[in-house]
């Protein structure tokens, strides 16, 4: 059906690694964009959690990253690609509580090893690819039930 393939929105946002002062600005923008598009509130809530956690991961670990938001009727797709250290063992990184965060990050209440779990739990489809020394790519899809 042509209707379901209709592209409601596409946008790309840069995330600055290491800057906790502006952390959350991209996900806040994504949330307000989705609200303006009239996306159902349960989808907006999930997208807010997923995009925030992905943004914080880039800020915490990478030099920089790019978040892409694509919206079709009933489908929100968020992709994040970063230039960071990469994840040597994805299974380990996906375990709740596992974290490589330093003390500074933990003191702020980040780096508790829950971010990727939140992303997985609040996405309807989730893909993660990573190459050590190059970076990490996440793809999250949230759909209306």
């Amino acid at each position, binding site marked *: 059906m042509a209707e379901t393939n209709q592209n409601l929105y596409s946008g790309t946002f840069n995330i600055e690694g290491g800057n906790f002062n502006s952390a959350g600005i991209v996900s806040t923008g994504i949330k307000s964009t989705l609200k303006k598009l009239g996306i159902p509130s349960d989808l907006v809530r999930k997208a807010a959690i997923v995009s925030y956690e992905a943004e914080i991961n880039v800020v915490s670990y990478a030099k920089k990253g790019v978040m892409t938001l694509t919206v079709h009727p009933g489908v929100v797709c968020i992709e994040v690609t970063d230039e960071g250290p990469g994840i040597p063992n994805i299974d380990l990184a996906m375990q709740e509580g596992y974290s490589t965060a330093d003390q500074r990050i933990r003191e*702020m209440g980040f780096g508790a090893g829950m971010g990727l779990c939140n992303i997985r739990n609040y996405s309807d489809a989730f893909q993660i690819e990573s190459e050590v020394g190059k970076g990490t790519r996440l793809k999250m899809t949230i759909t209306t039930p």
Partner: protein
Amino acid sequence: MKIEEIVQALGLEVKCAKDCLDREVTGGYTGDLLSDVMGNSKAGYIWITRQVHQNIVAVASLKEHSAIILINSSQPTAETMDKAEAEKIPIMVSDLPAFEISGKIYNLLTANS
């Protein structure tokens, strides 16, 4: 129950977004790990924490919390206050530790439900 009623009942000090205290509080969540709060709190909740840095405002805004309460007389940073004012997230300060202020708010909310 409205934020204003909780402020009055518990003698909380309102630090910012003083014109947003007529919001309804639907529940509460206590935590200092931001991902825990992101994953487990809900819209309308009052968030009780000891974190004072500006990232708490983004979390509260994204989760549509009704307000933030800082414990043990912790003071928000200047950046936190500015952001909270801009995002219209009331921040209150309590001199009580997390366990006690959480218990008092729980009692207020359940007595009113």
